[in-house]
Structures are given as structure tokens and as C-alpha cells.
């Protein structure tokens, strides 16, 4: 029984708890032991919250003792949380030195919702600093390795969450996605990951990177597990004014593959896509063509402008969001290292760029931020600055409208859009870190989805030399229900074929 925990789904674990085959504390200890045994090699966790987890598990066992039948399906299920989501009582670093010792003062809304379901929090997972990157190599603290091949990256920025799920160090995890940061690591690590529609999940308690693009989402081993977690965290939140009412909650919908209209955008299968990855995705598409789906060639003409558009808009929003890290209210600060009254003979205007006050900011941020974060802040500052705002930022916002319209046009003809998640297989650690632009190109198939605010799921559909290939399903706003129903069909088809390439 104990040895099999790693292969069990949320529903199976729930049944086991209700039937008293094992206790929540036993389940929690199993995962804590797995972390102990595996994480030195993988590096998925930044901190393990042993005490919190065991306390939560004990409470679940108490509930089971008194009323097993009313136990929520997620009760006692051990999970891991990306370290840019606040859990009160635990450190929250956002993968940055500047928040190395910061203690979360409140729970994110998604955390409160998971707490009300009585999940068990095993710990916080590694990420690229402030969610900027595509490999988790930008973390100020450690490298996370891809559990499938330890010489390769797990993807990013939710690399720790993806690696933890993939290596069975937790049952599910939460990540965040601004330009692909759930979907790409899910693809690289061979797990399922969902970026919800913009506004579907509250961003309250998520360390903000780009506020018009960020979303929190689940990562898990199966589509059903992902759906269960999504259901728990979705919903309007008065504390996030961009959160939306998702009108129809997930019901058991009858989605049939026959005559389902699926769009294959030609721009996502063109130059830049690794040949083998493209072929393996096309093989999967043929599977449901055989089952009667209507596979239609479509075009998203402004696709090639999505990445440049993203790398103007996201850094701009980041430069504003990261202005709060100034060494005054929290975080690592240089304030104690800057002596007051050192320049009595110079008439420096207080508040001027050379004043001690400003020096607190400039030195704190210089020491606290890593190179990629600085790059994006500088880029954002530039494109928002007077004289350049119209030519860059405003232009990018207009291109964003065109990208959104491309999707609206295509969704008049099809119900889902299918693409690869990544143009290439997981790359080697260190391979792209020296070349920022090369790293940015990892996101070519994922960023357009954030720009348009659409929901998208990444799921493993096969292997090439043991490395996982991920398929991306994109749907209309708030059609997560459709995505899950379709993804379950694909999951069955793929496993029945056991595709390897």
C-alpha cells in the first residue's frame, strides 16, 4: 500500500483515506520521506514545511475519525506551492535574494481555498527569480533538474513545481504562468499543467510580475487531478478586481470527439520547430482525426509578433511591479550600510538621484536582484520612458489587439486550437543561460495565449529518447470545462496507443 502512493490519483488517495486504508499522517510522511530521499538530486524545493504539513495531516485524520463521509476530495492530499505564492507563516522568496528572509504575512486566496479543502502543504518550490525565465536557472538559490534527465532543465519558471510532481515528491502543485511558465515546465517534465483564463483564478497573494498576464494554475500527473485542483481555486475574489465569475462550473460534460472542430495553426508548425517534436504532435492529431474529429488548418497571422510584443509588455509591467522592492518596508536592504550625513559640504538636494535616500534604493536593488530581473526592469523602463512610449509600448498594446483578434477569428471556426508547447525538447542546463534572446525563444508558442488571456493546457503525449513531448490545447475564454473534457479523451487515446517516437 505504502509503496504504491506515488502512482495513485487524487480520487484514489481520497478513497483510501475514507476507507481508512491509510491515514493522512501516513500519506504525509510518505511524501516527506520521498522529498528527503530525492530532492538533494533534483532540487525542486526551496523549503519543506514539515511541521505545517504534519499538523494539517493530523487535523484531517481527526476529521476522518469523526466524519469520513463528508471529507472533501482534496483533504489530506500533499502538495507543493511555487515560491511566489504567499502562505502565511512560511518564507516567500520569489526566488530572489531580495526576499531571502521575507515571511508571508497573509495567505494568497488560492491558498485559503486549498486550506478550506484541508490539503497538506509540503513546501515551497523553486522558480526563476520573480517568475522571469524559461528554465528555473535564474533562481538566486539553486538549480532544479529535470527528473527525466538530470543534465537538463525542468523548464521555467514553475520548474520546481513541475519537477516535484514529475518525481512524485507531491501529488500536485501550484505554479504561475505569465508567458508559458506552467505549460513549458509541465511539458519538459512530462506532467499536466493548466494556465487558466485571465481572471479565472485570483492573483491575490501572488507576487506580481506582469499584472495583465499572470495567472496561477495547477500541475499534476493526470488531467482529472488538474481539474480537481482547478475547481478548488477558481472563482471571483473581491480582493482581486481582475478576477472573474466563471459562470458554468465544471460539470460532467459530454464532449464527443466526433465532429469536434480542431484548429491547427500553420504558424506553430513552421520554421523554428524541431522536426521530431512537430512530427510527434502531428501523430497525436492523426489519432483523433481517425476518431472522427474535424481537423482544420487555420492561421494566426500575427503569431511571429507575439514574442516581441510580450517582451515589451511584460518587462514594462514588471518594471512597475518591482518598484516596491526598495529596501524600506521589507526584504534585504542596504539602509544600514549607508551612513547618514556623509556629505555635509555638498549641496545635494534630498531626494535627488545622488542623495542617501535614493542610494538606499539603488544599492539595495543592485545587490538584491539577479541579472535577468535587472535586464527586464531596464527594458521596461526604457519602453515606458518619454520619447519611446509610443513607438514601443503603445505599439505593442496595439499589436496585442491584433493577436487577440486572430484568436477570436479562429474560434469562430473551431472549438480548440492544438499546438506544440515548446519548439524543442528540454535543453541542457547552462545551454541557453548566457544568451537572453535565445532563452526568450523558448516561449514562442506560449506567450500569445497570455496576451490574449485564453486558457491553455499542456499535457504529455509521448517521448523522444525518453524526453517528454507536450501538446498545448487552447480554448475560448472560460472554457476550461471543454479543455479538461477534451484533454481526458486525448489522455485515453494516447495511453491506449502508448506512443513513442
Amino acid at each position, binding site marked *: 500500500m505504502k509503496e504504491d502512493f506515488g502512482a495513485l490519483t487524487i480520487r484514489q488517495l481520497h478513497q483510501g483515506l475514507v476507507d481508512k486504508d491509510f491515514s493522512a499522517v501516513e500519506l504525509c510522511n510518505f511524501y516527506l520521506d520521498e522529498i528527503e530521499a530525492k530532492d538533494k538530486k533534483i532540487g525542486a524545493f526551496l523549503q519543506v514545511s514539515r511541521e505545517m504539513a504534519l499538523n494539517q495531516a493530523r487535523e484531517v485524520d481527526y476529521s476522518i475519525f469523526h466524519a469520513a463521509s463528508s471529507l472533501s476530495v482534496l483533504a489530506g492530499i500533499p502538495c507543493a506551492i511555487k515560491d511566489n505564492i504567499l502562505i502565511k507563516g512560511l518564507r516567500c522568496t520569489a526566488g530572489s535574494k531580495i526576499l531571502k528572509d521575507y*515571511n508571508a*504575512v497573509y495567505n494568497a486566496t488560492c491558498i485559503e481555498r486549498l486550506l478550506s479543502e484541508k490539503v497538506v502543504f509540503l513546501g515551497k518550490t523553486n522558480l526563476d527569480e520573480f517568475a522571469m525565465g524559461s528554465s528555473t536557472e535564474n533562481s538566486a538559490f539553486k538549480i532544479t533538474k529535470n527528473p527525466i534527465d538530470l543534465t537538463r532543465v525542468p523548464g521555467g519558471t514553475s520548474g520546481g513545481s513541475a519537477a516535484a510532481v514529475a518525481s512524485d515528491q507531491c501529488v500536485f502543485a501550484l505554479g504561475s504562468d505569465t508567458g508559458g511558465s506552467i505549460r513549458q515546465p509541465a511539458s519538459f517534465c512530462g506532467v499536466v499543467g493548466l494556465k487558466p483564463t*485571465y*481572471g479565472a483564478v485570483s492573483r491575490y497573494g501572488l507576487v506580481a510580475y506582469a499584472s*495583465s*498576464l499572470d495567472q496561477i494554475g495547477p500541475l499534476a500527473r493526470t488531467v482529472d487531478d488538474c481539474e480537481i485542483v482547478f475547481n478548488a481555486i477558481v472563482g471571483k475574489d473581491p*480582493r482581486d*478586481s*481582475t478576477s*472573474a465569475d466563471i459562470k458554468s462550473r465544471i460539470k460532467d460534460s459530454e464532449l464527443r470527439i466526433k465532429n469536434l472542430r480542431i484548429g491547427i495553426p500553420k504558424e506553430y508548425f513552421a520554421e523554428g520547430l524541431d522536426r521530431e517534436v512537430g512530427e510527434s504532435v502531428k501523430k497525436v492529431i492523426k489519432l483523433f482525426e481517425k476518431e472522427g474529429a474535424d481537423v482544420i488548418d487555420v492561421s494566426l497571422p*500575427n503569431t511571429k*509578433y507575439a514574442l*516581441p*510584443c510580450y*517582451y*515589451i509588455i511584460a518587462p514594462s509591467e514588471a518594471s512597475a511591479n518591482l518598484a516596491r522592492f*526598495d*529596501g*524600506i*518596508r*521589507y*526584504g*534585504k*536592504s542596504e*539602509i544600514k550600510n549607508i551612513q*547618514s550625513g556623509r556629505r555635509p559640504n555638498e549641496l545635494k538636494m*534630498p*531626494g535627488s*538621484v545622488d*542623495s542617501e*535616500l*535614493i*542610494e*538606499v*534604493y*539603488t*544599492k539595495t*536593488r*543592485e545587490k538584491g536582484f539577479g541579472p535577468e530581473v*535587472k*535586464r527586464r*526592469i*531596464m*527594458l521596461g*523602463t*526604457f519602453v515606458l*520612458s518619454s520619447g519611446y512610449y509610443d513607438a*514601443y509600448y*503603445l*505599439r*505593442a*498594446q*496595439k*499589436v*496585442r*489587439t*491584433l493577436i487577440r483578434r486572430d484568436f477570436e477569428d479562429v474560434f469562430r471556426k473551431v472549438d480548440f486550437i492544438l499546438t506544440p508547447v515548446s519548439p524543442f525538447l528540454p535543453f541542457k542546463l547552462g545551454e541557453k543561460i548566457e544568451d*537572453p534572446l535565445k532563452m*526568450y525563444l523558448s516561449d514562442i508558442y506560449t506567450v500569445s495565449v497570455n496576451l490574449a*488571456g485564453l486558457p491553455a493546457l499542456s499535457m504529455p503525449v509521448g517521448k523522444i529518447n525518453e524526453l517528454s513531448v507536450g501538446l498545448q490545447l487552447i480554448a475560448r475564454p472560460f472554457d476550461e470545462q471543454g479543455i479538461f473534457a477534451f484533454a481526458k479523451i486525448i489522455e485515453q487515446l494516447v495511453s491506449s496507443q502508448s506512443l513513442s517516437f
Partner: protein
Amino acid sequence: MEITKELVERLAKLARLDLNEKETVSMQKDLSEILAYVDSLNEVDISGIEPTSRSIIQENVFRADEPRKEDYFAREDIIKQAPARDGDYFKVKEIFT
């Protein structure tokens, strides 16, 4: 778009980043490359196009301007993390002389 050393220094001041010499040089190079790449947006015909700041159409959210208990955090939890504090105050360098 030419990225000069002076531009980098000016941006660093705006961004409140104390970049050292080495960083300034490599930032010059990186920004040049990235801006050359995003310049491809100049190809796009944006005449008559409205900018998108919100991908999903939303309405303003209002509530009565009244304090709510559930919005309060323990003051000490917040202030105890201040890099420099004086009682219940965050301490800063002089702003006015």
C-alpha cells in the same frame, strides 16, 4: 535604435539600479539585441487599432469605502520585517533638510 552608454546610465538612474561598469557594458549589449529583435513590431500595420490593456473585458469593481476587519493584518507582523524601524514607524533616510 542605438543604445549608448549614456542611455543605459540614465535608465539605470530611472530604474533605481546602481549598475557597475561591467554590468553597464553588458546591459548595453543585451538591450541593443533585445530592442533590435522587438523592432520587428514596426512591420505591423496598426492604423486604426485600439490598444489592449485588458485581454478579457472587465468592469470596475466598487465597494463602500468602509474598513473591513478581514482586510487587517497584524501590524507587528508587518513592521517587524522593516529593515529599519523606530517603534511603529519605518525609518528612512532624510527626505527634507
